[in-house]
């Protein structure tokens, strides 16, 4: 419901961008996706520490669910970013600092899910995944810093504008509505995914009994 309102406000009501026109409307999806993805990985990081420390099964279920949703959202960020990039920059992809970091973020957490899926025992998989999640989350700021240096030390002027025009309030409000909407969607997905995971584990435990 809120999602529909958010999309309507963003895609129809909000005035088009002065420079980019209607294309810019994809921002109302792109930005919330990024923030949700970061939120999801922050949860993976904290839940990973909590799991290693307390060995609470619940923390692991939380981390696993958040990581899956985070990977999906990061994928959506990359896709919407590409769609946005083609008409505005003229290319689908450029090795800009932020794009590179996001792509690496995606790879790291795909690795996280693979470690979990490919480890024979679940307890071991959960511990390994927690470690990968902690290392990955700590690494993201360092990756970003190194990639920014890489691009700025050698190519002072990229064709990418560092900053668009400051966001006008008329664009800001729909943006916030969309943040709220996708946050609710995220929480909804997270709770559903966690219930599913818990049910799956219970089923496995029962199966092991028989």
């Amino acid at each position, binding site marked *: 419901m809120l999602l529909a309102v958010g999309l309507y406000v963003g895609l129809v009501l909000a005035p088009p961008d002065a420079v980019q026109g209607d294309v810019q409307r994809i921002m109302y999806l792109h930005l919330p996706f990024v923030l949700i993805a970061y939120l999801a990985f922050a949860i993976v990081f904290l839940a990973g520490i909590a799991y290693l420390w307390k060995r609470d099964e619940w923390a692991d279920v939380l981390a696993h669910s958040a990581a899956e949703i985070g990977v999906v959202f990061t994928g959506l960020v990359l896709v919407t970013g590409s769609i946005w990039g083609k008409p505005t920059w003229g290319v689908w992809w450029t090795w800009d600092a932020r794009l590179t970091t996001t792509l690496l973020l995606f790879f790291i957490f795909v690795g996280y899910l693979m470690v979990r899926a490919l*480890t024979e025992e679940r307890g071991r998989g959960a511990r*390994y995944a927690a470690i990968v999640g902690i*290392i990955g989350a700590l690494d993201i700021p360092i990756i970003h810093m*190194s990639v920014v240096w890489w691009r700025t030390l050698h190519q002072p002027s990229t064709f990418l504008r560092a900053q668009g025009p400051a966001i006008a309030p008329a664009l800001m409000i729909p943006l916030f509505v969309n943040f709220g909407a996708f946050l609710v969607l995220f929480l909804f997905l997270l709770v559903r995914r966690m219930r599913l995971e818990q049910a799956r584990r219970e089923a496995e435990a029962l199966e092991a009994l028989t």
Partner: protein
Amino acid sequence: MSFLRRVYIIAWKDVLLDLHTRENVTTLVFFSALILLVFNFALGPDRELLAQVSAGVIWLAFLLAGMLALGRSFLLERENECLEGLLLIPVDRSAIYLGKLGGNLLFMLVAEAILLPLFAVFFNLDLWAALPRLIPVAVLGTLGFAGLGTLFSAMAVHVRAREVMLPLLLLPVAVPVILATIRSTEVILRAGPWAEVAPWLQLMAGFDVIFLTVGVLVFDFILEQ
């Protein structure tokens, strides 16, 4: 026996093993040289182009070969149930991590030391002028790469598809070190100012400190049976 002495003994065990079998350093050297050779097919004989990309090609050859050695590191321990033996040593598990890391680091650095003169010949580099500045870059970069690599290697032996798992985990996470070594080597090889190298060295040092600390802290959870 102190903690450091045990770390040293675990590392020395790996070195002794390699002195007998000559598996690690020899394969590392030849594999790196082969990667270099194959890269040359992609790049062609253009002198100027080669000068521009030499730093990247050299480091990729070192690191890709190093990854194979890292992957074997814990595989050997698992094959003959040596890991159980290591776990019986009455010492904190982080000593095992640091010991294995020491061995891996040494193998990679020795291979780099053997190969650098060779690569200097291939790429027409002035090695003597660059060497004093190249050493800190090589040590810090290899330390960061081997530090995370040792950690993931210990994980990968218990995971299906383990040969792919190590690169899959290590490469994205090691990007800051890979970037920093390549970029600073590139500056050094064209005799650029030290001020351009220093930030990269700081980045590598910070990276090494953070991830060695994480490695020491979490290694216990990896070895847990």
